[in-house]
């Protein structure tokens, strides 16, 4: 096996330089829970691994006024133990918490989950549904992008060579705004989502939806923001007719494949089910604040 080089830079600039100066394939190591599996199986053969965890700010959650700022390498366990974040966005925390086992939670990060670019990534739908901004560092300095702009297809991202995610800026919820995430798996743990759904809603004082984002995972090459599902919710309370319209919109947005984790037919049906169930939870949570 060709040998790999390893660097653990202590600043963003150093990391950028290391990535830019690499001969051949350079991979960023945050939690490593996907990277090491790929390395071990021989699916990727990097020449350089850049461990970003020793860069200040890469691990941790900061409360910055209108945003929660989450370091890109922050492990899942820190998200679920952050009371402020969990209260604000239970759906985001639920999604992150569903990535793998407790052991995986000790390592796996939002950035890794996003950049692994699997359409089934559990943390991604709720992060996108909350209109999260991603901060990216690269040779040309920093830039910001909406979270949904990162993944462009299975295993592919919009990050340029040498770029990496530094942090996530998640807007704080407005009044009567909340979210939920559910996924379906055959067991109760340890599976990749057959379908995932993150739903983020804002209600008025009467419980009528004024804004919504419904994001499906594992039903297309990338996560899908289902505009028609949001339309089905906005202007309505969550009655049976609204749920039926939501279900229909969610199913209509699905362009899944049949693989070892699910069939086209099954994924499509379950997408509708999860859209309804997450909406019910998100409405209840939003109404309660």
């Amino acid at each position, binding site marked *: *096996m060709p040998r790999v080089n390893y660097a653990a830079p202590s600043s963003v600039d150093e990391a950028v330089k290391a990535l830019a100066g690499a001969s051949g394939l350079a991979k960023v190591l945050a939690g490593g829970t996907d990277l090491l599996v790929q390395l071990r199986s021989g699916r990727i053969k990097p020449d350089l691994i850049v461990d970003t965890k020793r860069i200040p700010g890469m691990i941790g959650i900061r409360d910055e006024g209108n945003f929660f700022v989450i370091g890109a390498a922050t492990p899942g366990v820190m998200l679920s133990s952050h009371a402020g974040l969990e209260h604000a966005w239970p759906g985001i925390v639920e999604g992150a918490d569903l990535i793998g086992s407790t052991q995986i939670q000790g390592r796996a990060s939002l950035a890794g989950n996003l950049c692994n670019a699997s359409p089934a990534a559990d943390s991604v739908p709720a992060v996108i549904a909350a209109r999260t901004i991603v901060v990216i560092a690269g040779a040309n300095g920093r830039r910001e992008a909406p979270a949904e702009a990162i993944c462009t297809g299975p295993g592919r991202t919009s990050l340029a060579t040498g770029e990496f995610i530094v942090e996530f800026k998640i807007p704080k919820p407005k009044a009567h705004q909340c979210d939920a995430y559910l996924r379906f798996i*055959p067991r109760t743990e340890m599976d990749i989502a057959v379908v995932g759904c993150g739903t983020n809603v804002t209600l008025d004082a009467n419980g009528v939806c004024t804004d919504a984002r419904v994001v499906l995972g594992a039903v297309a090459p990338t996560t899908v923001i289902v505009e028609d599902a949001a339309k089905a919710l906005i202007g309505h309370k969550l009655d049976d007719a609204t749920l039926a319209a939501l279900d229909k919109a969610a199913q209509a947005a699905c362009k899944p494949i049949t693989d070892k984790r699910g069939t086209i037919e099954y994924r499509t049906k379950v997408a509708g089910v999860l859209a309804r169930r997450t909406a019910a939870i998100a409405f209840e949570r939003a109404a309660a604040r």
Partner: protein
Amino acid sequence: MSYLDKAALKVVGTRPIRPDGVDKVIGRASFGADMTMPGMLWGKVKRSPHAHARITKIDTSKAEKLNGVLAVVTAADFPNIPNEEAFVGEGPMNFRDLSRNCMARDKALYDGHAVAAVAATSSAIAEEAVDLIEVEYEVLPHVIDVEEAMADGAPLLHDDMFTQGIEPKPEKPSNVAKRITFTKGDIAKGFAEAELVIERKYSTQPVHQAYIEPHACVVSYGSDGQCTVFSSSQGQFMVRAYCAKLLGIDMANIRAIPAEIGGGFGGKTLVYLEPVALALSKKCGRPVKLVMSREEVFRGTGPAAGGVIEVKIGAKKSGRIVAAELVLKYQAGAFAGSPVGPGCMCAFAMYDLDNVHITGYDVVSNRPKVAAYRAPGAPNSSYGVESCVDELARELGIDPLALREMNAARDGTKTPYGPTLVNVGYIPTLEAAKNHEHYKTKLGPNQGRGVASGFWFNIGGESSASVHVNEDGTVAVVEGNPDIGGSRASMAMMAAEVLGIPYEKVRPVVGDTASIGFTFLTGGSRVTFATGMAVTQAAEKVVEQLKSRAAAIWDISPEAVEWKDGKAFPAGSNAGSFEPLSLADIAVKSGRTGGPITAEVSINAQGAGPGFATHICDVEVDRETGHVKILRYTAVQDVGRAIHPSYVEGQMQGGVTQGIGWALNEEYIYDKNGRLDNPGFLDYRVPVASDLPMIETVMVEVPNPRHPFGARGVGEVPIVPPMAAVANAIADAIGTRMRDLPMSPPKIRAALDEQEPPRLAAE
């Protein structure tokens, strides 16, 4: 002697801590991959990426030239073994097939089939070298499904395979290795009398034993021809026998040392790596370690057979079954030898039937060669039969336990496979289930309850044990069975009971092939029964010696000495008046009374009593996703006598859980090229802790008179009922019968969609 009076027992029936326990909770126990040898190399196996291909050329020259590579082997480095069958592992084994399974010769027969191996100074170099071995294949059409493999025109795996059991011998080769039949009574007459006939087809999938420890060994092949094999297996004597046969080595030149074994369930009753590692070691003169990755375990080892089960049952309206017919088509994998025989024999063994006809087919296809898995053969056929019996009970409106009781096998029942049952405890399991509080609880919406029963023969066989009294009065027990689930504890308990000393004074050891007499492997639920019998007899021989030594000390006749509570007493006042002598008192003087006190017993244990079980399962079905939650599970089993009840319960709970996995989610997924698409624990979905409730156990004790303590094998029958119990519970919950395993969420949702349009779905 017999120790069937439970009230008189002091050690047997208690729950002491296992002797090897501390080593296993602090990480000190040495499993297959934990051993090293000086100068050891790392081996790696190259495997076929094709399901079926002729190997036209293997070029190892580039790999051999890589710095750090010391040996490369292919089939050319192994003797070409003739077609010869023997009973060494679990079931008849054809040595030619086994040799070719360890290393493909001429053809690769499944994705993952070993085609070459290397040994190098590091695992990284070995991996690199494997990639440098160039194999040219002529890819052949392949077949995965059992019925497709049986069809005319299916790709043939073996040109020389002609179906056995058909007269006259077929003229054309076939993938059907064997056809067997069992007949009792007159099936046509039976069905003519039936008032209701139910005929159904069911299917099961091959499943992996999924022991958490991958296969591993460390071996050395000395220049003097003497070999050491340290490996994780269900039997060191099995490893020795297979390595000797496959490589042409005298058994005396192989010392097989049993590592601690990280699970087997039947899957480690044959060899994969050991002969390959020995061939590598022979070639380079250095010790070699070979360890499988999880992917290799899935692609190259196991699984248990899956298959098709066609059941036809005829009954009177009273519920009395008057005719039963069964056709089994079992997957054997790439080489003949599915457990279709026991599948046939166990299928109706729970029932007292007059008219039965059973046909079984052993079918090869381009999958790994099947290995034994807990009650091999029985879970598949029982899933079909116990589902069909449940359908019958529902159709007739009879309680399923009552229907079973009406038709239950009992002492005097002549089984469909011939023998008349004696000393069996099936009906007590039905009664215990019926009377259990679980069976009476109410169920909520979308919840259902199912019951099912199961049978397994259990086996005895050859076992050796020795008992040595140490100078200080403690005792060593040496046995020949790897301890796969606490058997050291049972051995020590039985020895302590016979000797009348505390359990802690007895230390058991699992011997290597040079330090204890031949012992058949750990399998067939035989260890506590057969090896326990050997230990008991050896301990009894020691007691006889202790009595004669006490007699020598007292200078009286040995017949005048009694052994009680670990001490020698004069047998009555005529024998003389002496203070009792403890085992320790006698041990310290053993040199003066004739030398060390020790006994070894080797036996071929006969009369292993069969095991019956009845299970109750409650489920809840999510009608929108098809997800099944196991709400409650109770396993009732006739265990004969529980030597260490905790480990008996553990066998029941583990078997149930494996059965639940088989029922709900476990399956092999192949792509169109016949490559395994889920060779890992991510997508081969064994149950995890959060999937399950506590597994309740009820141990019914109908002692087996053949065993000194009344023990029966307990390890296998627990996996027999669960698939039907779960299926019957699902049918109760949703009103639809799932006849194909696994009963995974997509299948259940599809079944529900056929039933009625889903509520709230888009119109």
